[in-house]
């Protein structure tokens, strides 16, 4: 297991390294000059050149990349804005704030939104899926399946504003979505996130319902499940001990992908509800050609996805003893 984790982590570092190179090259391939953007309306050639120098954009690209890497690992005191301890992504061109600090500021929002949503959609989705599979062929199954089908064909940017309009602006049943620190005011944290959670988990839950149902039905037709029934084990026992275990594999796989990409920033959800998370940060960084911020967000999201992948693969080993991690 340890070997597996070490190997996968090393692999992840290599991927991140390659990703940073690609981001770097793509950025300089863009026909936009971030210095020009910062220079503003009163820009003179001298100012622009000065800015280039300050930002380090006058150096050759490989050298810039090297500086980026060393800063990341060792930190740097060369920035005009102040010291930048490792992991140092530098200072944002646009806001002049330390990139790492900005990421850490935005992270709790995304984390709260995503993890809270994930808990909701897992419970609702898997629960409904299991019930549908248990009651296969009945009215319950059919209505669950049909409902899940309808909901999963909707999108956040439709369901989100709809929920806002009805639940917040019309009926005033819920607070307007906002992010409050959990440590400062748990009540406000909860009430500010409840609508985003509901909307996010509705859509995801419908997909997990369909997945859990079909996965369970497939497992229930496995021969080893029939063997367990032939041994006299009860339907409930066979359902939860034999079939459920096997149906977890595809669910965990998809959940790993979903969670990873959500943690990297639920862009649409954050925009819809005006939550200042990583997703919005990503969009801003591209919009302002903010290289340090872009690299920071990119690498952070990628790390999240890779981390989730490793966790999923490790989870396989717990679920299925045939998957030996070496």
């Amino acid at each position, binding site marked *: 297991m340890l070997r597996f984790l070490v190997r996968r982590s090393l692999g992840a570092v290599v991927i991140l390294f390659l990703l940073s190179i690609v981001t770097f090259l793509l950025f300089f391939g863009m026909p936009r000059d971030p210095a020009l953007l910062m220079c503003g309306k009163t820009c003179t050639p001298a100012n622009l050149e000065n800015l280039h120098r300050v930002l380090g954009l006058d150096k050759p690209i490989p050298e810039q990349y090297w500086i980026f890497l060393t800063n990341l690992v060792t930190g740097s005191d060369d920035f005009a804005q102040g010291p930048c301890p490792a992991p140092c992504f530098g200072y944002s061109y646009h806001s002049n704030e330390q990139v790492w600090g900005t990421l850490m500021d935005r992270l709790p929002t995304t984390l709260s939104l995503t993890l809270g949503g994930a808990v909701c959609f897992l419970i609702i989705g898997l629960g409904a899926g299991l019930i549908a599979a248990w009651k296969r*062929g009945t009215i319950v199954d059919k209505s669950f399946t049909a409902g899940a089908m309808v909901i999963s064909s909707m999108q956040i940017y439709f369901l989100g504003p709809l929920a806002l309009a009805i639940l917040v602006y019309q009926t005033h049943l819920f607070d307007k979505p906002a992010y409050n620190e959990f440590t400062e005011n748990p009540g406000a944290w909860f009430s500010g996130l409840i609508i985003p959670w509901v909307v996010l988990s509705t859509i995801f839950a419908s997909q997990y319902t369909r997945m859990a149902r079909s996965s369970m039905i497939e497992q229930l037709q496995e021969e080893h499940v029939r063997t367990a029934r032939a*041994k006299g084990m009860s339907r409930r026992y066979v359902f939860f001990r034999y079939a459920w275990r096997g149906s977890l594999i595809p669910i965990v796989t998809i959940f790993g992908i979903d969670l990873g990409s959500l943690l990297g920033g639920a862009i649409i959800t954050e925009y819809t509800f005006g939550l200042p998370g990583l997703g919005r940060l990503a969009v801003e960084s591209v919009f302002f050609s903010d290289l340090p911020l872009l690299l920071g967000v990119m690498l952070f999201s990628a790390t999240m996805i890779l981390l989730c992948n490793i966790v999923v693969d490790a989870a396989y080993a717990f679920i299925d003893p045939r998957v030996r991690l070496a």
Partner: protein
Amino acid sequence: MTTLTKEAGAPVPADADAFLSVRDLHVSFRTEDGVVRAVDGLSFDLERGSTLGIVGESGSGKSVTNLTILGLHNPMFTTVEGEILLEGQELTTARESELERLRGNKAAMIFQDPLTALSPYYTVGRQIAEPYMKHMRASKKAAWERAVEMLGKVGIPNPRQRAKDYPHQFSGGMRQRAMIAMALVCDPDLLIADEPTTALDVTVQAQILDLLKDLQQEFGSAIIFITHDLGVIADMADDIMVMYAGRAVERGTVDEVLRAPQHPYTWGLLNSMPRLDSDPNAPLAPIPGTPPSLLHPPSGCRFHPRCTFRDRVGGTRCETEIPLLAPDRSSACHLTAEQKRTIFIEEIKPRLG
């Protein structure tokens, strides 16, 4: 020998004294294409401690019959009619909880492919211990000890260690041994073995077949042994029932059915099977045509479209009238007993060489 011209349609009522008595069993599945009549009017009895071999090709209904005995068919798509009496207890109408008490306890099953039939997620020991805990109300520890004991009995070396292994860590033959251990753990009176050696290599098959025979001596279970291989059945069974397209076509002791078969289908099977002692230069005599679709089974005798002897019956009896199978030694065919005897001796036996 019984002649089979009985016109009376009503089958003999189920024998409440018999260990297992199946009467006029009909099993059909609803599918998208229509209703598949997998088993159509099957009756047989099984004595305590004896072995009945059911032989037939795919789609003959042999596996379905036995899943139905233990109620393992999917009730949503399946209709079951008829009687199944196990020690006088009616099983087709039994409640699920009653069947659960029976399964793995009084009646156990061994399946064809031990790799897919054992759960990959639990240790072999646990899977063997589970039914023992449930049916014998044994503690976890006692059940585990029993599992280890059973693994030793079926010839798994180092059973205490191997009980902690998962099925994928066993070889094919060992898995089937574990499966046998699991089936016998509660000392069942009835063991249903559905092609238990088909997925195994021939040398391993020989080991497993002998093991089953030896264990049957010790445990005294009655066995229903399902296979498509006449050689295996000759080795294992006391009595044989030959099935074709959902019906039994011939029944008798091993010697009767294999050495003096009466049904054209049995003749066909014997003639189409190469043996180690047959003349290798004589061409095989296959049964012409293919097995019928059970969506639209042929009228009358279901074998008549492939039967090369139906002219000898004359008229349209084979096409219109279903030949019946009497209890004990008999075959469901419209040929007269005399015809069956002479055809076998003069035309079939010489070919068997």
